[in-house]
């Protein structure tokens, strides 16, 4: 079947990807610069028998998505900074109750209402640490329209596979940018669906079997009457105050991520083989870095790019390895220094680590990045 060629915004590609991944439910609240995701979902979902609902606030947006997911629907909500702040409590709920849900954050300039129509990358740490308590996090960042499409599918797949919320952390650059994109045929797309218990099986909602880390998930209404709570619970799903039990549960939740880093972590490397210098950048800003590297390479400077696509869990091993080979790492991001802290942590002094960033709503230009790079040199 012929591929469909389209000219889409990142936000539109997100919805195309979500539908390809099997999204049947969207609930959210209007917020710039993510609104196109809601608008397109509202138009497309009822056409395939799915459901869209505009909720009364951001908190309800994620709450309804979690509720829908419990009935078996693949559910998504999208937002931007202020809304992402409001959703945090229920992100933790989905992590502890192990309910698959996709949360898109099209980052804008912050803090507070900030710069609603301008890009930012100030929510990187919030994506990891925003909800209270330790919890597993999977967070993906695209740098193009096509990758937004691909990562939205991946976000759904990982949510289903690991029974956990997955954050797609885009930004106003990739969200509103238009690019040519070839939409593959559905037959070419790998779609993962949560594992459900078989009818008639004895079912403990949070019991895992030998070597497994993810419990099977029954749909509400399918004959398995079980309990879901945000309290610490045992393998039956019912609340338990046992500290021993809480430790077992927390260890398993964290292990879902820690034991599967190879499956979760994806990244892009550009010209790193012979690189003496490394730029680390992600999302829309990585495009600036790619342009800067081209110019610098033309000048004979051996510089490469490492672009985390999975930002959480952070590609520690990969960055640590590269830090042994290069003289400097320059982290370029639209904030006052977030990923750079993570890079410093994993580099452990192997090489010099610097930061190039701003948070005034402008994109970083290749010229600015080149200037910052040459200062490091």
């Amino acid at each position, binding site marked *: 079947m012929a591929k469909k060629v389209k000219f889409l915004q990142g936000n539109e590609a997100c919805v195309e990807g979500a539908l390809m991944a099997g999204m*049947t439910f969207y609930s959210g609240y209007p917020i710039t610069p993510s609104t196109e995701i809601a608008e397109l979902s509202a138009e497309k979902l*009822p056409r395939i028998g799915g*459901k869209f*609902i505009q909720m009364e606030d951001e908190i309800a947006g994620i709450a*309804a998505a979690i*509720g*829908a997911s419990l009935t078996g629907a693949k559910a998504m909500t999208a937002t931007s900074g202020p809304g992402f702040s409001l959703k945090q409590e229920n992100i933790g*709920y989905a992590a502890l109750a192990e309910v698959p849900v996709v949360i898109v954050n099209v980052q804008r300039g912050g803090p507070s209402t900030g710069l609603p129509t301008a890009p930012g990358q100030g929510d990187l740490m919030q994506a990891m640490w925003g909800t209270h308590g330790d919890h597993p996090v999977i967070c993906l960042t695209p740098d193009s329209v096509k990758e937004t499409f691909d990562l939205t599918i991946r976000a759904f797949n990982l949510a289903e596979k690991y029974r956990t919320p997955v954050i797609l952390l885009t930004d106003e650059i990739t969200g509103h940018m238009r690019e040519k994109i070839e939409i593959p045929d559905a037959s070419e797309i790998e779609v993962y669906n949560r594992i459900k218990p078989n009818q008639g099986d004895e079912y403990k909602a949070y019991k895992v079997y030998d070597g497994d880390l993810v419990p099977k998930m029954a749909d509400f209404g399918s004959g398995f009457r*079980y309990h879901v709570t*945000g309290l610490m619970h045992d393998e039956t799903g019912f609340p338990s105050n046992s500290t021993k039990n809480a430790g077992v549960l927390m260890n398993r939740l964290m292990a879902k991520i820690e034991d599967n880093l190879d499956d979760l972590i994806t990244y892009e490397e550009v010209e790193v083989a012979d690189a003496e210098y490394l730029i680390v950048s992600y999302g829309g800003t990585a495009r600036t870095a790619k342009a800067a590297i081209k110019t610098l390479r033309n000048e004979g400077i051996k510089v490469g790019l490492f672009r985390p696509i999975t930002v959480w869990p952070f590609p520690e091993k990969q960055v640590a390895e590269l830090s042994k080979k290069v003289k400097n790492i320059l982290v370029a991001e639209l904030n006052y220094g977030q990923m750079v802290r993570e890079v410093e942590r994993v580099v452990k002094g192997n090489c010099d680590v610097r930061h190039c960033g701003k948070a005034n709503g402008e994109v970083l230009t290749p010229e600015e990045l080149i200037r910052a790079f040459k200062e490091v040199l």
Partner: protein
Amino acid sequence: MNHPLAEGFFRMEKLPHIWCPGCGHGIIMASIARAIDKLGLDKDKVCIVSGIGCSSRAPGYMDFNTLHTTHGRALAFATGVKLANPELEVIVIAGDGDLSAIGGNHLIHAARRNIGLTTICFNNNIYGMTGGQYSPTTPTSEKGTTAPYGNIDKPFDITQLAIGAGATYAAKTTAYHVPQMDKLMEAAIAHKGFSLVEAISICPTYYGRKNKKGSAVDMMNFLKDSFIDHKVAEKLPPEKKEGKFLIGEFLNKVEPEYTEQYDKIIAQLKK
């Protein structure tokens, strides 16, 4: 021997419940089970959703698809459950603080949409789980641990709030008026569209103690003496109505239900 209702609708291994001696919540929870029984609902197709608080522990004891969510958000989660699978009978259990303070926005919007959820508010006029702070339904001048000199807030009438917001079924009852409560529960669950039953509960441990209301029995007697059905009240002379609170069915009307309206859009697009 256990009561057949208990065997059929409760998770016996999860009992006894955590509620204090004299608490009215168990009476209300049992009434919900009796209504489900009377209506002959398929247990596998009933979903009970709650938020956080004393009453929100009820779903853990009830043998259905049960969802204990975050504080105030039960109706928002329930909206997702119902819209994604309208064949489920979704019942929301919420306390007065959960439903009308932190969850107030979800209450008015669920009512406005007329989505087919039944909300049972266990109203004990206090935050019990956290130890007796005043809630949006604590009467003016009564005390809570955070209103040591008397509450200066004006209380919500949750039933009227739901009516004002667009609910199509609304009723109020008390933990004393059990036969009435059973009838109202049944009607509310059977109702198509957003229904609410505000069940006045008692909290002898915090509200009662703080406000010198006496024992649980004294508080039950207060419910018995102070609440009358509004239809009965209509026929009474004014002096007999003085100081009384009105209970009963206040609204029961038919309007298009949200998930059915959405399904119509889906059907239309298929053509």
